[in-house]
């Protein structure tokens, strides 16, 4: 996904004189954005390992009338510089694009310092952000182009984890992959293939979300209505991140909600991303076990 982001952003920089890119060393090197920096020295700015400055500079570019993209590892882009994210765009009456890599535990050997399972939850604490969670490299270009052409604040959460096929709907709606009767299971981004493997023999509806803010609650309500308002959310970030949206969408109807995602614990463990899926109950066996208990099947 990062390669697609880099090549597409380089093309957009060629075509759109309003677009600018701010980096903090991550992805700035050869084979990454180095050539774009040579081609557009005024609009590709690497500030060094200074994430507060990176986001602040992006905000200042927006004040000057440019369309900024800031990009780094998720914990440094979103968490380290969160006050800049909060104050340097929307509070100034401007907007920007933030694109992260690393996701919840892509670099599992790196450990907790490089894990960012709480990023999407943080965006829910400030107004106006669109959030995309692609589950396939082919799901990156569409949201990126749309973000470059818009004046919205947009967060795109890239990951090394990917599904075998792309399924995202271009309009940000849920994609229905399978119909069943016992539950509506919403798989977010890279979680889809594990959800499909976990539910192959279950009588459930499977819906796929690659855009989570705004969340397609209209389709969710329709689908839930066909599964006795029984819903399971499987998110590749902090478990329960989207509970408040599902609950708000179904305030008028009794419903049951199972929320699966990454736990809050600092496991102090390394291993592989698949290991972390397993430890957080997000591998096919873990998802299946949680669903079986939830659905009593």
């Amino acid at each position: 996904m990062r390669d697609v982001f880099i090549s597409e952003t380089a093309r957009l920089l060629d075509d759109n004189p309003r677009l600018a890119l701010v980096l903090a060393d991550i992805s700035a090197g050869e084979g990454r954005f180095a050539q774009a920096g040579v081609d557009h020295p005024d609009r590709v700015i690497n500030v060094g390992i200074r994430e507060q400055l990176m986001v602040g500079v992006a905000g200042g570019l927006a004040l000057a009338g440019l369309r900024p993209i800031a990009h780094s590892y998720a914990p440094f882009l979103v968490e380290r510089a969160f006050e800049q994210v909060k104050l340097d765009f929307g509070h100034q009456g401007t907007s920007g694009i933030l694109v992260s890599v690393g996701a919840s535990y892509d670099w599992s050997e790196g450990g907790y310092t490089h894990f960012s399972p709480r990023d999407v939850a943080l965006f829910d604490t400030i107004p106006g952000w669109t959030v995309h969670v692609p589950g396939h490299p082919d799901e990156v270009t569409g949201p990126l182009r749309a973000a470059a052409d818009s004046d919205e604040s947009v967060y795109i959460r890239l990951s090394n984890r990917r599904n075998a096929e792309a399924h995202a709907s271009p309009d940000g709606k849920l994609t229905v992959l399978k119909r069943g009767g016992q539950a509506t299971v919403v798989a977010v981004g890279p979680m889809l293939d594990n959800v499909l493997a976990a539910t192959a023999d279950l009588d459930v509806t499977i819906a796929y979300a690659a855009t989570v803010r705004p969340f397609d609650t209209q389709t969710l309500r329709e689908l839930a209505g066909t599964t006795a308002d029984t819903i399971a959310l499987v998110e590749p970030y902090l478990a329960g991140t989207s509970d408040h949206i599902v609950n708000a969408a179904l305030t008028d109807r009794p419903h049951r909600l199972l929320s699966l995602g990454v736990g809050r614990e600092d496991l102090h463990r390394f291993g592989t991303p698949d290991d972390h899926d397993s430890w957080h109950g997000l591998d096919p066996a873990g998802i299946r076990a949680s669903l079986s208990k939830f659905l009593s099947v």
Partner: protein
Amino acid sequence: MTATFETARQLAQRTVVDPRYPINTYTLDPLWVLYDRILRIDSADPDDPNRDRFYLSKGHGPGSYYAVLAAKGFIPADWLDSVAATESPLGAHPDTTRVPGVEISAGSLGHGLPLGIGTALGLTAQGIHAPRVYVLIGDAELDEGSNHEAMAFAGAYGLGNLTTLVVDNHSATHGWPGGIASRFTAQGWTATTVGITDHDGLASALTRHTKAAPHAVIATVED
């Protein structure tokens, strides 16, 4: 009637909400000099892309700022009589979305200089070379790490269309031994230190920049 410094001083007094706590007017001098002699900003055309940008980063106690904006015709003077009232656009920190002439919403320290750097870069990237970006910070605000990220980058980059005005009223808890100017010059800035009530000195210091480096003016409050 042409506004004078005395006009601005009297307007600033109108922002005092509680007479037991008179406003700190030491920022009135550099703000007045900026708006009266330095900044190319027209209150009749406040969105002109070719205007200079002034970012008040140290947004605390903005009475002097509001007074200068009123004296220069950006906001009505009667707004000054109801600062922070329920429907007042003027808060205890300025809000760019509510106050004509206010370029950034400030309050949390350490945001103005990074924003100013981004704007300075963004103007150049659009081929807009006439304006300068001026950012006012305080000596205690200089404690914020984001300012040190900004100082190091702007100096190394040679950002020639940026001026930082540091109001030094010796309020930084651990001080700046050796002075503040050396912090900037060590990182490739030019810097001038001047007394904060010396209007001619301030005007001179604020025009002593080159095109090759960012410029810092340290305006010191006498003890």
